[in-house]
């Protein structure tokens, strides 16, 4: 019993020390510059939470009423709150890589604007990391959940929801065109927020008979192996247990695949062909086209679905015959049958039938209002108005959209699509126009194109924001 008393005192003292250190560290970050508004939200939350936690622990240490509790009960009570300290450390760690010089700061506000067009309350935190991977994580819900069982739950009330942490590879931070892949990551946010899974997953038939057949085959193989060796083999799984396990694996795989496929279609809907081009640049290992995993469907299936979506939504011939031709070649790749892999993946593949792929397109079309989707006419307009500026080495901060209005700043998907069409179809003209000082080799030219696009993002966002603020000031 006495040991509990000592344990509680040590736990309290350690938690208070750590809390003080955490609060001091969070306060020090005041001088740090971050690219995303979400970073300030996270920093202020950790500061607020650690301060309140410290106050709570101070009260707890001197609360005479707690003496009435059994030491064991008191220890559990303290632990319930102390466990927040390592959690808050983790949350603060998210800020690493979000500093303004480690992220393309020019990209943050246009990206946030694009996302907020569809999810008006979304807040983002863009960070770069050492992994060669793009990812998105909604953290507000997790934080609320974690705090919900503690006396500090009210501290989470001011957190914006959803709060997305988007990670991009550090080494590719300035490769703007590749960041079109973030449309897929934003798609994950939309998929969860609009509960698209509820509209798709119930319509998929789990192949129960085929699962049973597979379970029977595996069980029979195991039985035979046991009979042959008879000594060292473990007892084979019962067929019924195997069937349950396989059902779980297959449904899990289907669910993950549908999520990814839907986010691909969402990516095409909100960012147009730019998302597809970024996708094929990042996943262009042809040898891996049929490789699936439990979390991701075979790229060939994704390519096929995106090409179909592009054909339905965009008049690519009107954009540029070379783009039309390129999509045509990928269509051929996407149309080929996926080579069947492991048993459970084959079953998942059969369940995600052409009917389901059509359903995904329909569900996405209904979820994203036409006014917010990137359209075929916009693509043609962007190629006619933005691309010529970029081609002459001028950032597209303002373009004439309609004959009756003045110069308007283009938004993120418009710039990305014009940039991709320039890179894929008219890059030679761009290179020829570049001053020799920049370097005329392909790599230097591509670097200049990325810089021009970043500048376009920066200047267009300033122009848009300036106009908004000026209008607000006018009342």
């Amino acid at each position, binding site marked *: 019993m006495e040991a509990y008393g000592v344990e509680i005192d040590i736990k309290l003292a350690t938690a208070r020390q750590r809390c003080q250190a955490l609060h001091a560290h969070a306060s020090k970050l005041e001088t740090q*510059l971050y690219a995303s508004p979400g970073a300030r939200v996270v920093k202020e939350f950790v500061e607020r939470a650690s301060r309140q936690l410290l106050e709570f622990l101070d009260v707890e240490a001197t609360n005479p009423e707690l003496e009435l509790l059994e030491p064991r009960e008191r220890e559990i009570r303290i632990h319930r709150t102390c466990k927040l300290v390592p959690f808050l450390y983790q949350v603060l760690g998210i800020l690493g890589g979000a500093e303004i010089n480690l992220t393309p700061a020019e990209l943050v506000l246009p990206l946030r604007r694009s996302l907020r067009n569809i999810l008006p309350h979304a807040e983002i935190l863009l960070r770069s990391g050492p992994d060669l991977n793009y990812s998105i994580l909604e953290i507000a819900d997790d934080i609320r959940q974690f705090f919900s069982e503690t006396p500090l739950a009210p501290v989470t009330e001011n957190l914006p929801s959803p709060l997305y942490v988007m990670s991009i590879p550090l080494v590719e931070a300035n490769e703007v065109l590749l960041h079109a892949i973030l449309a897929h990551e934003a798609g994950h946010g939309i998929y969860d927020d609009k509960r698209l899974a509820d509209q798709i997953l119930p319509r998929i038939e789990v192949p129960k008979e085929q699962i049973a057949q597979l379970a029977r085959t595996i069980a029979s193989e195991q039985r035979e192996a046991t009979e042959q060796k008879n000594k060292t083999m473990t007892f084979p799984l019962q067929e019924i247990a195997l069937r349950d396990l396989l059902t779980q694996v297959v449904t899990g795989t289907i669910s993950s695949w549908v999520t990814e496929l839907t986010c691909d279609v969402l990516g095409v809907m909100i960012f147009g062909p730019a998302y597809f081009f970024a996708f094929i640049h990042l996943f262009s290992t042809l040898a891996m086209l049929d490789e699936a995993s439990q979390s991701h469907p075979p790229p060939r299936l994704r390519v096929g679905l995106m090409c179909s979506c592009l054909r339905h939504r965009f008049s690519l011939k009107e954009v540029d015959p070379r783009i039309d031709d390129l999509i045509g070649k990928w269509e051929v790749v996407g149309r080929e049958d996926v080579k069947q892999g492991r048993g459970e993946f084959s079953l998942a593949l059969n369940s995600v039938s052409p009917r389901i792929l059509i359903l995904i397109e329909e569900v996405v079309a209904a979820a994203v209002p036409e006014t917010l989707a990137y359209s075929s006419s916009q693509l043609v307009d962007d190629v006619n108005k933005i691309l010529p500026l970029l081609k*002459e*080495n*001028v950032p597209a901060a303002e373009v004439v959209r309609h004959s009756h209005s003045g110069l308007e700043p283009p938004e993120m998907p418009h710039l990305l699509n014009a940039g991709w069409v320039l890179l894929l179809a008219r890059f030679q003209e761009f290179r020829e126009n570049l001053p020799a*000082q920049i370097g005329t080799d392909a790599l230097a030219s591509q670097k200049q194109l990325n810089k021009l696009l*970043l500048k376009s993002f920066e*200047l267009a966002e*300033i122009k848009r924001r*300036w106009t908004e603020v000026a209008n607000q000031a006018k009342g």
Partner: protein
Amino acid sequence: MKAVLLSGRRLKAALCDLTKPIKERLIITPLLAPDEQVSEAEASVDVRLGQKFKVPRRTKLSQLNHLDESHAKNIERYKDETFVRIGDYFVLHPRQFVLGETLEWVHLPHDLSAYVVGRSSWGRDGLIIATALGVHPGYSGILTLEVSNIGEIPVYLWPGVTIAQLFIQQVVGSEIGDSDRSEFQGSTEPRSADAAEADRRIIETFRNSPWPS
């Protein structure tokens, strides 16, 4: 060649003329408040302070010796880049020097050149912005501003404020194809330069044989 300074009215007309091919247009973009930045009564365009700064890292830089080729080439590495969003500020302390940029991208056709002059209102507070920075015909890029505080009091630099004026002049006698060949062409951020690149070899020769044989 002789040059003719463009009036505010001519500047406005040139900036609004979208009929010419892009290469032959005068482009200053974005103009956040066009009527205020290009006044018909004046003969210049007001340009604003941009969001990027480059600050020399004193603790890593022992000297600036432009005859040392490797040092001159590495000069860019000894500068910290800082991005300050509009609405935030950068404090320039007395005797501190920083490279800034114009917010606007400037694109000059082959028959126009420009020079940049810091606004006198800043100068009176001790802030020196560039010194007769010439921009050659055919230049396209942001303009790097050399900003120093020679006053006694720290000065807040707010991106988005008008900081300099651009005087634009017509160059008579130039031809299409004549274009700026400076190393700053196409700049998207403030840039240092290898100041002695053109003269390094000859000065080096002088150094090695100071007396004529």
